[in-house]
């Protein structure tokens, strides 16, 4: 296929060509960035919490007096344990996706100079480490005498288990076992590393800090009461949780059940990412509508050009051009226009990405998005022009002999 004649014909339709190319360029920029945004959201939605979500649920009680905490813990732990199907009940301060994080800035020296970031502290009573299903990748699991009484919001001097992500951030390249850190005076020593452990509100400190969590084995007491971790088999969990919520009214009539948090971890996760799912859905809808509009624009303009050039097509056919030649002509023409658009669109896509990077916490657009976007638009252009091009190819040579 010769490109020269196609180009010189396009020069005659400069305005329309530029218009379609601009539309393609815009579509390319929006397509690449919207796909990138969707990928980012999906990545967030699919984060690994590190706990057995399908087997876990939380019960959160408020409104009781601090002095009643010890008694409440005892009543709830023994009361809920009798529910058929309940594998374990333990005291915990929060669960992933349940909110109410326990954040504090840590330093890797006693003097408080080497700041290592704001991390979340999970305090968990006996049994909670196993119940969560945390995967230990270094060190040992907590033992009975590791559970210390809570003094401030955590024990004052404790062995802790950190997520791999936090270990790599705080002590890059070295074995984290035995390393120490401080929150002011309280002092902690790393006894183990778990593969994953998301914050109770993942993402609040930015995407890179989602798993900056510490597990501190803690003895339930007056300062550590009210939130409980339930474990049951995934099939029985919803029934067990329902029974537990009903039982609480009898076990702890003095406390108020926080219904929004007293859910299975799976449904807390569902609620937590609702907004991100909606946003991803909206972006997907916009991409679909945008591609449809662009395709229809190409169909409209191509149909007009075919109509306008009926006579010329007839003459070319009469001079020996095959149907394939005519089809090829329109397809090449569309390919060239879309290519102009894509070249411009890649620059636009980068500009748009820079803009998004300054206003949203978004990384740089990976380069491989550009060829994918280009392929989609080339495909779309070819598909859209096929209809009008086939109509052009069907123009009989005899048209050339007619005057109009």
């Amino acid at each position, binding site marked *: 296929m010769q490109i020269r004649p196609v180009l010189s014909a396009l020069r005659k339709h400069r305005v329309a060509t530029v218009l379609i190319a601009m539309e393609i360029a815009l579509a390319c920029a929006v397509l690449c960035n919207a796909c990138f945004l969707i990928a980012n959201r999906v990545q967030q939605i699919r984060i690994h919490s590190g706990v057995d979500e399908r087997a876990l649920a939380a019960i959160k009680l408020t*409104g009781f007096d601090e002095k009643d905490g010890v008694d409440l813990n005892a009543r709830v732990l023994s009361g809920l344990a009798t529910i058929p199907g309940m594998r374990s009940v333990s005291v915990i301060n929060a669960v992933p996706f349940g909110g109410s994080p326990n954040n504090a800035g840590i330093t890797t020296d006693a003097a408080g100079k080497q700041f290592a970031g704001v991390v979340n502290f999970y305090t968990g009573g006996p049994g909670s480490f196993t119940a969560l299903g945390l995967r230990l990748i270094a060190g040992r699991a907590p033992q009975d005498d590791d559970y210390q009484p809570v003094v401030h919001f955590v024990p004052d001097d404790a062995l802790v288990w950190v997520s791999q992500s936090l270990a790599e951030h705080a002590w890059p390249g070295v074995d984290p076992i035995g390393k120490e850190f401080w929150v002011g005076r309280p002092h902690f020593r790393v006894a183990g590393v778990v593969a994953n452990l998301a914050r109770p509100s993942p993402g609040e400190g930015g995407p890179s800090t989602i798993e900056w969590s510490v597990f501190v084995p803690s003895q339930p007491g007056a300062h550590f009461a009210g939130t409980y971790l339930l474990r049951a088999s995934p099939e029985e969990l919803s029934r067990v949780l329902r029974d537990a919520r009903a039982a609480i009214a009898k076990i702890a009539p003095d406390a108020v059940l926080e219904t929004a948090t007293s859910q299975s971890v799976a449904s807390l996760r569902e609620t937590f990412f609702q907004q991100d799912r909606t946003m991803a859905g909206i972006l997907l809808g916009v991409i679909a*509508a945008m591609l449809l509009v662009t395709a229809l624009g190409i169909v409209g303009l191509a149909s*007009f050009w075919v109509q306008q050039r009926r006579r010329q097509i007839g003459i070319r056919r009469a001079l020996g051009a095959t149907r394939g030649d005519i089809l090829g002509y329109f397809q090449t023409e569309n390919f060239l226009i879309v290519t102009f658009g894509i070249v411009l669109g890649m620059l636009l896509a980068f500009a748009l990405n820079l803009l998004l990077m300054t206003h949203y916490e978004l990384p740089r657009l990976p380069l491989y998005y550009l060829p994918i976007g280009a392929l989609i638009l080339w495909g779309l252009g070819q598909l859209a022009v096929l209809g009008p091009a086939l109509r052009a190819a069907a123009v009989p040579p005899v048209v050339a002999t007619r005057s109009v």
Partner: protein
Amino acid sequence: MFAYYLDLAARSLKRNKVLTALMVLAIAVGIGASMTTLTVMHLLSCDPLPTRSGTLFFPQVDPNPYPDGPSLPYDMMDYRSAVDLWSAHRADRQALIAHGQLKLTAPQVNLPPLMAQVLSTTSEFFPMFDVPFRYGHGWSAQDDASRARVAVISADLNNKLFNGADSVGRTLRLKDSDVRIVGVLDAWRPSPQFYDVAGGRFDDGQTGDFYGRTEDVFLPLNSSSDINPVGFNFFTCWSMPQSDATLQTSPCVWMTLWVQLDSPAKVRSYRQFVADYAALQKSAGRFARADNTQLRSLMGWLDFNHVVPSDVRLQMWVAFAFLLICLFNTVGLLLAKFLRRSGEIGVRRALGASRAAIMAQCLFEAGLIGLLGGIGGLLLTLLGLWLVRRQPVAYADLVHLDTAMFLATFALAIAASLLAGLLPAIRASRMAPGLQLKMT
């Protein structure tokens, strides 16, 4: 002339129904998406107190005794600084605010206990923010000082507990204490709930909760701390609190102060007052930094906290990019349409129609498409807003189409289509009459 062009435009649109439908649909979808997001944006970024916001200010000091703390002052204040500034009474009005939850029951009302969101404040909160009352009124400065057990409740709570009846004089049990209701708010839904805004810069754009409903119970600050001294939420602490510390003596920030300053001179002198206070505290050894003070206006404080959720902004930009693509599309299709009629236009020109007349005719057609697209866009906007209302977001119940946005929909649709029609119209009007006639 008007009727003639309308007739011509209608005829032309009828001639190629598919193309017309395509253009109208593209405009409608583009307008629908843009107006939905623009309406949400408009509702979320408007002034929550249009008559008062210019005179309301938010003072901040940096009570951190360590010089290497955060570079900006904390979003809230410690007890001592807040109470010192408040009790000086240097503003026209001032109110302290702290948040907490208390277990609430109402005698003679058969409902299980619930955790009520409690706003602990001082008497001038109500007149300063122009809070509307359904029944009764706020409490007095005397009640603040005498730690009176009085409360104001929200319309929502009044509906829930007392079915909306006048509950002034009735008793609520908060934790272990009885309080007497002195006032019931009327429907009050500032958007955003500006007096609760803090910490927005740490929310990573997820600020939808600033548009929630008001607290259930409003209590005098002193009474509230008598009822439950540990019942307040703190914002952050600059060092680890002692285990026996009360919030009042803890190294934590948990209170805010709002002041009303009725003239620029008063704003200047209050700014000086806050700076002087910080300097005094520094020389007393309590503050490390005296220069780290702020006095932001209400709107300035909202901007600083990026109250409009970043997703809402993003949706708006995406929608406008989409509208732009729809416009390019319409330009292309109109160009094709007008140029296809070159013969007809040639005849009109040869019969004496001026270029302006041809252009007017083309723009009329474009405007008609815009009007039809606007009607479609309006329906799609209503659909879009209905979808937004079904989202589990705090501002869902605020979302509606107001008159301004209703008119803006048509203005935008017609402006967009005229803009799209301008280039094709110019091209059509430039056609030489002779050339087109020769070919036919």
